[in-house]
């Protein structure tokens, strides 16, 4: 706890946040969602101020971070509080985009783009498809036509309390733990990865003008280390060969040594992924195959309608005939058929809805 954030601010931030989320969640009766969102923003502000007080004053605050954080958290609040599934999914895309922004801030460009492409581009589209498939989207002025289970959240107070106590606990432990955490300083090992990329180094050195067009990095025969970009001592050095077996050595002391001769993000991920975790890739492939099979099996499974749903479908078809007659006897809700909405009552609706 000591060092990163004062407990008073942390806990008051959590309490205010809980209040905000609780207000923002959809509920029966008065639902002050805007106020809730504002209160939640206040809570986030408190937390950030709490962190900022003790943080080293290295310069101006990183506005990009705060921007993305606000967008991410605000839209995730909207994900859980918006009554309409479609909007929730769209807000989730916004969350993803803001997260991708934070990834870029954290110098993880590849992951940022992967996140946008895979999550926002693929997964969320699937969600939208299913939402379209499984619900009839009401138009904008028909909010009350939403089903009960979408309109009202379940025990918001209790869930919020549980959630924010957990958040408070986790952040407390993080705040006490992070000062003791030591970064695993593997900067030299990432540089050593470049040793395995002689062509890449060669290109880099050549564009810096260190080696000529007909010079190449010496082959790795006879145990001779021709390329050592992360030596245990001394400057990084490269041995190049030119002509017939003549070699010369270039070291990082050279003024023309390119400053950006470093592993890029994508290269680093490539090494980490393919060299350090080859088994995991294969397992991930198996999982994807299995998931594909699983969703095929689940989706093509023949189902019969539940008793209650059958009754609902019956009533609906009955209602549709009645509606055709424009009968005033038509009740808005049909007894014994839960969650049947007027919007569902349509002419020619297939009672089964499924094979």
């Amino acid at each position: 706890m000591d060092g990163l954030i004062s407990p008073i601010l942390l806990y008051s931030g959590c309490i205010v946040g809980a209040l905000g989320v609780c207000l923002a969640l959809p509920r029966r009766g008065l639902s002050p969602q805007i106020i809730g969102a504002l209160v939640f923003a206040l809570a986030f502000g408190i937390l950030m101020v709490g962190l900022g007080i003790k943080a080293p004053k290295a310069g101006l605050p990183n506005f990009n971070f705060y921007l993305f954080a606000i967008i991410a958290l605000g839209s995730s609040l909207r994900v859980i509080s918006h009554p309409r599934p479609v909007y929730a999914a769209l807000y989730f895309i916004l969350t993803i985009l803001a997260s991708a922004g934070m990834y870029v801030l954290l110098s993880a460009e590849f992951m940022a783009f992967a996140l946008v492409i895979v999550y926002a581009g693929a997964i969320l589209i699937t969600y939208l498809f299913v939402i379209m498939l499984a619900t009839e989207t009401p138009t904008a002025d028909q909010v009350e036509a939403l089903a009960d289970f979408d309109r009202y959240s379940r025990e918001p107070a209790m869930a919020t309390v549980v959630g924010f106590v957990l958040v408070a606990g986790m952040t407390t432990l993080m705040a006490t733990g992070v000062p003791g955490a030591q970064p695993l300083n593997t900067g030299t090992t990432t540089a050593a990865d470049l040793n395995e990329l002689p062509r890449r180094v060669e290109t880099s050195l050549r564009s810096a003008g260190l080696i000529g067009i007909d010079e190449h990095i010496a082959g790795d025969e006879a145990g001779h280390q021709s390329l050592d970009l992360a030596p245990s001592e001394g400057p990084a050095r490269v041995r190049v060969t030119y002509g017939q077996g003549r070699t010369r050595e270039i070291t990082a002391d050279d003024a023309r040594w390119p400053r950006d001769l470093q592993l890029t993000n994508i290269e680093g991920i490539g090494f980490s992924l393919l060299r350090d975790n080859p088994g995991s890739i294969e397992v991930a492939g198996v999982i994807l195959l299995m998931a594909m099979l699983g969703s095929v099996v689940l989706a093509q499974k023949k189902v019969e309608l539940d008793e209650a749903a059958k009754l609902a479908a019956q009533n609906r078809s009955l209602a549709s005939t009645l509606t055709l007659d424009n009968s005033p006897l038509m009740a808005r809700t049909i007894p014994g058929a839960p969650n049947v909405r007027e919007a569902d009552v349509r002419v020619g609706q297939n009672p089964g809805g499924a094979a």
Partner: protein
Amino acid sequence: MIDLLHHLPLFLAQAGEHGAPAAHAAAEHGADGAAGVGGLLRVNGTLPAWSAYLPLLPLLGCVLCTLCAIFRVKTRLPAILTVALLAVSFVIAFLTYQHTTATPGAQAALVHLWDWINFTGTVKTSSWSAAQTLVGNFSFYIDPLSCLWMLFVTGLATLIALYAGEYMGHDLGAGYCRFFMAFNLFVFSMACLVMGDNLLLLFLGWEGVGLCSYLLIGYFYQKPAAVAAGKKAFIINRIGDLGFSMGIMLTFVQFGTVEYAKLFPMIEAYLVHAQHGQLDQIPFLVQLIPVLFTIGAFGKSAQFPLYVWLPDAMEGPTPVSALIHAATMVTAGVYLVARFFPIYLCSEWALPIVAWGGAITALLAATIGMAQFDIKRIMAYSTVSQLGYMFCGLGVLGAAGGVGHVFTHAFFKALLFLACGAVMHGFAGQLDLRKLSGLNKMRGWGVVTWTMLVGCINLAGVPYITAGFYSKDTIMGDAFANPHTQAIGWILLITAGLTAYYTFRVFFRVFVGPKHYEPGDEAHAPHDDHGHDPAGGPALRAGPGHSEPHAPGPESRSTHGAHDFHPHPPGWAINLVLGVLAVCAFAAIPLVLNLDLLSDKIAWVGGMVRHSTAGVNPPHHDHAHFLGFEDVHGAMKIVSGIVALLGIGIAFVLHYAGRTTAATSRADALLPRLGPIPRLAQHKWYVDEIYDFLIVTPLWWMSHIFHLIDKLLVDGVVNLAGFMPRVAGSLVRKQQTGVLHDYAVSMAAGITLVILVVILYTTGAIGGPLAATLGGAH
């Protein structure tokens, strides 16, 4: 099983290594300790791979028979499997024996199969702390004694399985499979008992044979008598087992191990004291161990006062009686005493108890046997009586005599039982010697008669031509040779006469004399247990009208029974088995000709005993004279021969000479003059009733009183204890609402609580005190 077979080579490879350290320890111990013992407890042999299959084949048979039962096999396949597997295991036993005796000086070998029980822990009390290791491996300790036992167990089991294949033929199907399943399991258990290298494995086998005996006695579980007999055997065996298990525990407490290879060297240290007559230097608890063992042995081997179950056990199928209750299981007690003979020598009271218990049993059972009419029951009492002889033999320090008698008795008693079984089989369950006569005059019964005669002369101990004579004679000679046990010798001598009498009483009445028979109850109830399936034996199919559906009244049955009933003589399998056993009974003579452990020309059985744990030198005692003869054994041969012939003669006079019908004999005229004795003997001296009065009734009352207390007090507590979880459960049950969200909230709340606890812990709020409350190491 697969597991085991896969690893067998591995286990066997370990066998030698396992043996080696123990042998080393034993040799060391022998060097500084017991010079007089002669290092008989050395474990220095190794055995080839196949010897481990000896007990596993019957186990495999058990599994296969179970599979037969599952697949509802309705053929004789279980019998064929059993005979084949047992025959192979007999061959293995024989090869193992050869291997064991081939290398001179190698007396015992350990075969380690797999680790079974291995508890290592440090026992701490206020005063001492020691590492205790309870090791009970599935390993075999193979020395001549266990070889001897396994030879006749597997051999007889093979023959009897062959016999049973025919005998049980009426019950093909589930019962047949069940029978052979238990049969195989019995042989496996017996192998564990005899070959186990530790007391736990021995006890496993001990309980296993008891269980199989219970299952097989109660084989005809529809018959109340069979169920009652099974129960009786089980309960009385429990009494013995209680003593035995206490003995095992005491052994562990006293010696810290139950493995023979470690146990015997320790016993050897005490044995030195015993051999110098310094019994007072041996701790009391060590002296108590053999006494406790004796209780177990008496229970298993049906000795007074725990013998009452064995005669009732005759309710089981006859092959079972022959195998379990005559030849093998009941000798487990004798084996136990023989195996632990060294520790018996260390006790002041154990051997006298064994000897006197045996003597009393021998006499008592013989007197009861004289007055019975059921031939199978007579054989049962004779078994009890002969077991008494064996215990006497051990008790009077003649281990070779006792074991030798086990060996000879196994053959002739199995023979007698199987012959009785053949009679029972052929005459529809008839076993009353007053209703059968002159079997030798009937067609197809010649083999049975002659083999029965062989069995009878062996049991009676007809001098010089029977193996039973030599072994029994050795026991009596040993008894007379010791001045302290001459009284026992006299009892045994009298018993020998009685034995000869009741044995030949059976023979003269049933197998010779006028031709007469009445079928048993089962002739009129063909679907009863011993009744014959109409499509069963060939003889039955030939004999028309034997299964008359309408039973005549009892009177008419007794008179006309013979007219509508045709006994069917035994088939080839039964005759073959009887023949082989008869030959064996004679073939055993040279093997037991001389059972003097100190003699150079000792016979085979004696040699086997001498090289086992039973072969330790007993403490020296004075040599007594018998009727003025210096050579007690020589004199005994003559005297006991005369006594046996005398008994046969009396039987001849009373039961054969001048007998005209099956039911009457000269003995009937004699009976009234003897007063109440014959009636008392016929009612087994009312021992069962006395037990009833002395033990069962008080127990019944006590149990009722305790039951009352139990209901009022203990049940209350138990109910309360059972009630509390219920209350707790119904409280928690409310949480299990079936709603996904409730579960999720509870889960999240649980996680939150745990995180809070972690925070409190890390901030030191509840670190010390809570951890102290929960106990545990930090």
